[in-house]
């Protein structure tokens, strides 16, 4: 197939299932019937907001197998009492 504009040979490419003819001389592109609609459809899918990534929890540091179920490696979040100090834990922090 030759380019209808500059008569250079045209090469066929397949992009995402859409056949595209491109001229090797002027780089012009020809689309067969329906291919413009196919490209438009692909473009609209591309420009849609990507689905939000799975909530990426801050990787919890490793913990032992006997660790608290909601702390460390099991839940990946704060422990039961992590958000505010319990008075008893305050005492524990300073005790032998």
């Amino acid at each position: 197939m030759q380019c209808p504009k500059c008569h250079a040979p045209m090469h066929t490419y397949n992009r995402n299932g859409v056949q595209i003819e491109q001229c090797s001389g002027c780089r012009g592109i020809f689309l067969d019937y329906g291919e413009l609609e196919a490209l438009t459809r692909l473009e609209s899918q591309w420009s849609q907001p990507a689905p939000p990534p799975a909530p990426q929890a801050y990787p919890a540091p490793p913990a032992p197998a006997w660790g608290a179920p909601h702390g460390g490696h099991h839940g990946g979040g704060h422990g039961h009492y992590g958000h505010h100090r319990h008075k008893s834990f305050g005492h524990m922090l300073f005790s032998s």
Partner: protein
Amino acid sequence: MTADALLPELAAQAAGAAHRAADRCPCTAAVLADRPDAAVVRHAGVVAKAHAPGTDPAALALRLTTAAALPGIFLPPLTPAAVPLATPIPVPRGTPARRTAPAIAPDRHHRDCRHPEQSEQPEHPEHPEHRPTPHPRLMTLWPHGTPVDPEDPDAAPWEAAAALLARLHRGPVPPALPPMRGPAKAALAVARLRATAPGRSAARPVERAWATLPAWARDEAPMPGGGALCHGDLHLGQLVRHPAPGGPWLLIDVDDLGVGVPAWDLARPAAWYACGLLPPEEWTRFLTAYRAAGGPAVPAEGDPWPALDVPARALTVQTAALAIVRATRDGRPLDEIELAVVDACDRMSGLPPELDDGLAK
């Protein structure tokens, strides 16, 4: 020496060291700690500590020498050696000696005066009319430093603590230094549990968890490995800024200092984190700073728990045992924090310790 006579004696010693040139001063001595294993009194810039009855003088001397040789890591003692306090004289309670003792006030007025050892409630398990002590209590004198504010543990200097430990663990081990006393303290806590609250239901999971530990961690066999210089009883009360109030952080309390498994010094924060009490961010800050400072207790990267597991189990057992002892003494149920530690004991009792170069054997 009776408890009544010990505190005034300590106060007089501290005052004497604080004001060698002055006959009298306007200061009031402050009792920073008054426990069976230690009494600590501050007077102006000097802190006097009476060590536990039965403290081995030779071992304490080696520990003092070691601390004095670690400036920038340990608070250096004011005097190179411990001195025996006055020969104990049995004094019945309520005699004039009690009423004429020098004024000693709990230090409630100066935030920076409070000492972490004060946070422990006074404990007098037995208080006979006469309590003669077979050997005099040994006393050491220290400069006063500003502790971590017990009312604001969020300001805990995790990075500084980690860096101090890393430097301590990397340091040369002085010859003849005794073992660090971490496992001995854990065993003492379990002994107190058995003596105080053997039938309490919460004691059972604690005993089962204790049984999972290797002999060395129960103080029934020597510690494995070549051994590093260890603090032996690290918690937030073992850090002070010196010179007060804004100097660098230093470690205090030489009583458990010695040679041993350095992961023991990381095991309290590790246990608090594992029990769900210490937020992961603070544990990460501590562990990251320790690794950044080249601390040898855990591998430089990867899972630190093969090295931490046994010591963290032991500290969890120790914490749970003492919590049950206190709750029994006070006639109250365990609170939710104490229950979290007992629950951790219950979970670990079904799981053998992680293996790490023989630490679990």
